[in-house]
């Protein structure tokens, strides 16, 4: 494997896709492809990161992302340790500063962090020597999700997304997935559309490199992929939506919508899905749905991310 990774990874941390050049994105996804191949073998384990330790610090619960990183680490023979909210002192009572000091003391090679505060990953990155991988911070960024989404799309479209149109549908305001995907998809050359009711659109969105729609019927026309976002059900209580059935009537992606998209258009969802609210159940199970492919891509891409960040120092340059 080493032979193919002469590329010296220049980043200590992965905080946000905006820090990556197009070459770096492609290198990371290419690396993911090699690991993807390992994941199809009968024995899905290589000794690449033997002796390296990866701490999974999930202050906010997420079974999927945490498991994905855990599997990714183990397949590379890294030791993975979970530090979760329950079963440790990580509650809203302990400051992130104290948590950071605890984590530092464990002397890990990589810390994967999921946190409710936007900027939490950067906070750790500024204070700790080891690599910090942002697995989602507040509403800010979810770079590994965006990279795995791109990885899934690349398997269908090839390396350049020029000429492709991706619609991101749902709660854009609170979505770190949307923010990271807008940055990454536009970097890869795709045109991006966003669609949501005004209550779920962020301030300043009209200056993002996207087109903004409130009508799904309009937004979906000519799309090559539709990325549904998860809707937090408490948005209704927060006064942002009248009721969930009205939301579903207006913004749930259905086969009727997909008929207006370009032929062969793909459907993505970061999961877990609220079937019938964000995405029609039957649509989620159709072949053009990449939902399960995204899960498999997630492991491969996260293997690449752990590999590049955990071995960076071994490459000689700091």
């Amino acid at each position, binding site marked *: 494997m080493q032979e193919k990774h002469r590329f010296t990874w220049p980043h200590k941390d992965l905080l946000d896709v905006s820090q990556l050049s197009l070459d770096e994105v492609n290198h990371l996804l290419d690396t993911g492809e090699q690991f993807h191949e390992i994941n199809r073998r009968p024995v899905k384990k290589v000794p690449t990161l033997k002796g390296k330790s990866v701490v999974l610090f999930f202050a906010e619960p997420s079974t999927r992302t945490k498991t994905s990183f855990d599997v990714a680490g183990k397949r590379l023979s890294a030791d993975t340790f979970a530090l979760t909210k329950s079963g440790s002192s990580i509650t809203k009572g302990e*400051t*992130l500063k104290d948590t950071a000091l605890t984590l530092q003391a464990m002397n890990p090679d990589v810390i994967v962090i999921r946190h409710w*505060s936007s*900027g939490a990953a950067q*906070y750790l990155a500024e204070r700790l020597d080891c690599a910090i991988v942002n697995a989602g911070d507040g509403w*800010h960024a979810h770079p590994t999700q965006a990279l795995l989404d791109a990885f899934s799309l690349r398997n269908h479209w090839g390396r350049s997304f020029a000429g492709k149109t991706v619609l991101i549908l749902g709660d854009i305001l609170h979505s770190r997935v949307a923010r990271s995907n807008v940055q990454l998809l536009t970097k890869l050359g795709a045109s991006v559309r966003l669609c949501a009711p005004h209550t779920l659109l*962020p*301030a300043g969105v009209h200056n*993002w490199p996207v087109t903004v729609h409130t009508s799904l019927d309009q937004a979906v026309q000519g799309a090559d992929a539709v990325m549904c976002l998860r809707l937090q059900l408490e948005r209704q209580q927060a006064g942002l939506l009248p009721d969930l059935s009205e939301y579903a009537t207006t913004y749930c992606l259905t086969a009727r919508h997909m008929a207006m998209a370009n032929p062969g258009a793909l459907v993505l969802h970061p999961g877990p899905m609220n079937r019938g609210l964000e995405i029609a159940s039957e649509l989620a199970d159709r072949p053009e749905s990449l939902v399960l492919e995204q899960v498999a891509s997630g492991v491969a891409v996260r293997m690449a991310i752990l590999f590049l960040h955990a071995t960076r120092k071994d490459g000689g340059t700091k």
Partner: protein
Amino acid sequence: MSSPLIIRNALYLGQAVDIAVRGGVVESVTPHEAARRSFPADTAVHEAQGLKIFPSFADCHVHLREPGYEYKEDIESGLRAAAHGGFGAVMAMANTNPVNDNASVTQSMLAKARATWPHGPRLFPVGAATVGLEGKQLAPMAELAAAGCAAISNDGRPVGGAELFRRCMEYARTCGLIVIDHCEDPTLAKDTHMNEGETSGRIGVKGQSVVAESVQAARDILLAEYLQIPVHLAHISCKQSVDLIRWAKERGVPVTAETCPHYLLLNDTELVNYSPMAKVNPPLRTPADVAAMRQALADGTIDILVTDHAPHAEHEKECTLDEAPNGISGLDSAVPLTWTLVRDGVLSEHDFIRRWCHAPAEIFNLPVNRFAPGDPADFFLFDPEERWVLTPDAMHSKGKNTPFLGRMLTGRVKAHWLGGVRVV
């Protein structure tokens, strides 16, 4: 009582003057050496060497944290920062613990100030508008006025209900006090950590809209016009609010307003890296708002400058943006920071003095030095050229929380007299 004093060769509004002080008051201001006179043998002479002399400034909006939060600041340390910052009078907000909503708290604050800084800076407590700042029941404002409060305010916990706020204005008027309102609609501002706009949308932080401020400023203005009772609007931060205030003043509505150095010098891009030091309420706004604030200060729509001095302990700002408390520690650096506006031609030196000294004294009925015979000998010498770096060690407040840390400031307070007694 202080001994006679001569300040020689100070620059007052561009003129070299000698200032004679006797009995704690200004005796005369004469052109430098114009009249060589003989002074009593015990006269102290201070050679000002051409430094600027300003009447002591008033800061009508500070949080001194005592009683209850002395680990952030106490009256002694807060007044020390004021003295070194050029302030001879400070008005301290009521959000202490216990809240300053009764005479005993007011009196204990005043006693502490007299004990620690007998010659000043003078403390003028601001009483709570409602009991416990809870926005339910009027505070005993007559009692607070009698105990020595200089104004009434629910600052920090704005009164959301228009009916109750009306009664606050009316009752405070009855007690001879003016209400200072922190203009913030509590529902529009709920759980917000910075200005709502381009930056908050991009970095994924819940933002506070400018209308959270201006909608309440509009309410206050309309009440002031209807009731014909003055109201003072605290730490105004955005263009929408100053447009409303300008409109109100043109109509003759009795409204006055203040802003702080940070709303004139910083914008919300300070927060792109989630810097807790730049977290303040109201939040730092956009560059367009900053331009509007500067314009409003220059044309007098904004009457006065204040610091909204809000000291916090170091560990309290050592966290993520959403967990950090609001506030900037301002007393130590406010004068040099706003001196930039004179250097930039936004304010004349005369207006600089007016916004920091004469106008606050008029609005809140504070003692003031206009350098007329008999005025309190409250003044400080200021080197307008000295460049210095704002470091924690250079600050006298316990609170070192300011986004200006590490920045080069131009202009420095060199000496400060209050009632003819040198305090710095």
